[in-house]
């Protein structure tokens, strides 16, 4: 079953097409990589799916539901969680609070619960604190929980952003360059975490710049160039695809 369907998506910025009649589908419980050179429109696709941008044309279905007119927060609540290419944490609050902001609340985030400091709110807060603690353990940041997020290193920030998105418990993860700028060891941790998510029944769509590093992990690769899909398939098919080789290696001798 397809969890996400994109149909004929078009997005123009001042005449430049960041998405040019783009269509693809993501199967549930799979790991899919979205690759392409700089400026090929990968992040734009993420912004369109998550409602931060509105397409000029086209449709997007999540679990067969059209989500094109939904606000970003609504889309997040439906079960699409995303990370950002340039890491968007909450720098001047604690690592713990960063994760807790990802957790869905039932009672606690209403004004009346806050005003009257209700028992339900406090119970939920306690439960969520423990959940957040566990998530920080998963990414190995439990010792940093009281530090401000801005004091973390680049790799730790990436991991914290992942912990925060895990807290949201989305069904579909959109990870924008999850391994960019990471040391090989941290990269391995990140890929292990992604595989782990798949084992738990989640679906992952992630953006990568470097086509070679996704070969091991992705089950399907979608290659973009100038907003167009130029190839889609299993890693070995992509490796042998002439069009992709042309884009990536500049081979013109066809």
């Amino acid at each position: 079953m397809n969890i996400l369907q994109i149909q004929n998506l078009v997005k123009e910025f001042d005449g430049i097409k960041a998405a040019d009649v783009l269509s693809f589908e993501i199967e549930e419980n799979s790991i899919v990589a979205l690759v392409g050179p700089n400026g090929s429109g990968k992040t734009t696709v993420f912004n369109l799916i998550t409602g931060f941008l509105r397409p000029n044309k086209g449709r997007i279905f999540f679990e067969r539901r059209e989500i094109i007119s939904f606000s970003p927060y609504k889309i997040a609540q439906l079960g699409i969680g995303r990370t950002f290419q340039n890491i968007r944490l909450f720098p001047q609050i604690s690592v713990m609070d960063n994760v807790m902001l990802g957790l869905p609340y039932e009672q606690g985030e209403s004004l009346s619960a806050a005003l009257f400091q209700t028992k339900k709110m406090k119970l939920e807060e306690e439960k969520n604190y423990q959940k957040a603690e566990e998530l920080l353990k998963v990414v190995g940041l439990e010792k940093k929980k009281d530090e401000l997020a801005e004091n973390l290193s680049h790799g730790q920030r990436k991991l914290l952003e992942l912990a925060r998105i895990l807290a949201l418990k989305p069904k579909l993860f959109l990870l924008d360059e999850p391994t960019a700028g990471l040391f090989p060891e941290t990269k391995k941790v990140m890929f292990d975490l992604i595989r782990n998510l798949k084992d738990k029944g989640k679906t992952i769509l992630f953006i990568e710049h470097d086509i070679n590093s996704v070969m091991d992990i992705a089950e399907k690769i979608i290659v973009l160039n100038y907003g167009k899909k130029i190839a889609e398939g299993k890693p070995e098919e992509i490796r042998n695809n002439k069009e992709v080789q042309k884009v990536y290696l500049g081979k013109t001798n066809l």
Partner: protein
Amino acid sequence: MEYLIHIIIIAGIYIILSLSLNIIVGYTGLAALGHISFAAIGAYTSSLLALNFGVSPWIGLIFGAIFASIVGLIVGFPSLRIKGDYLALATFGLGIIIYSIARNWVSLTRGPMGLPGIPQFSIFGYEISSVWSYLILVLIFVIITYFVIRNITNSPFGRVLKGIREDEIATAAMGKNVNKYKIIVFVVGAFFAGIAGSLYAHYITFIDPSSFTVMESIVVLLMVVFGGMGSLAGSFIGASVLVIFPELLRFLGMPSSIAAPLRQMIYGLLLIVLMIWRPQGLIGRFRFKKT
């Protein structure tokens, strides 16, 4: 002694204003420059109700606060679309509009002549006219404001506010309805500013537009920044210091024609010094973003 109590009462009113602005600027990170206009609405609403219809100041206070928060709601909506410097300009504009209304709608507000003879609060037929009893009244409102704002900020709700301050886009990506929170914050802030305005009007028993100029909004903002954005104790300190400090100038034997402009110059200087050496304020933790 009465003079000292008077200063503390004024400081108390400014503490309410600072606390209510802190939740907007310090916690949620919305640049609001028109906070005194909510106080003006509270002050004029309850004064006019009392003078024209003989409404009890207690009821006037509540109506003033509600009316201020309705205006807060109206201001809240454009704040959803504009951000940062633009929001600062828009709220600055609100400050000018409210001031102009107070000054120019003479048939209602008597314009620059002001509204004299505003009745004072009374309990069981006894007027709260001595400074001592008024001090207690103001302190009660300061405590109420403090606990309400503390409860709001010290909760998952408050955490979302800080999230909006830190990164609005990321907050939305976490499934939080950012717009809803922004509006609530404006309404709550305006409500308490309205109370502060009404407390001021029934204490001084005279109001005119000059008490609600845009400069006053900036003074309140300075109190918040000086004490520390996102720190409630900071608002207490900021408001107290900035109310008491200029009074000290009087004891230097300066004529008020010099003391008044000097006060503003000192405020300006203070803001510059603060931004350079201690951008998080005296006891705050949050700084303006380095951009």
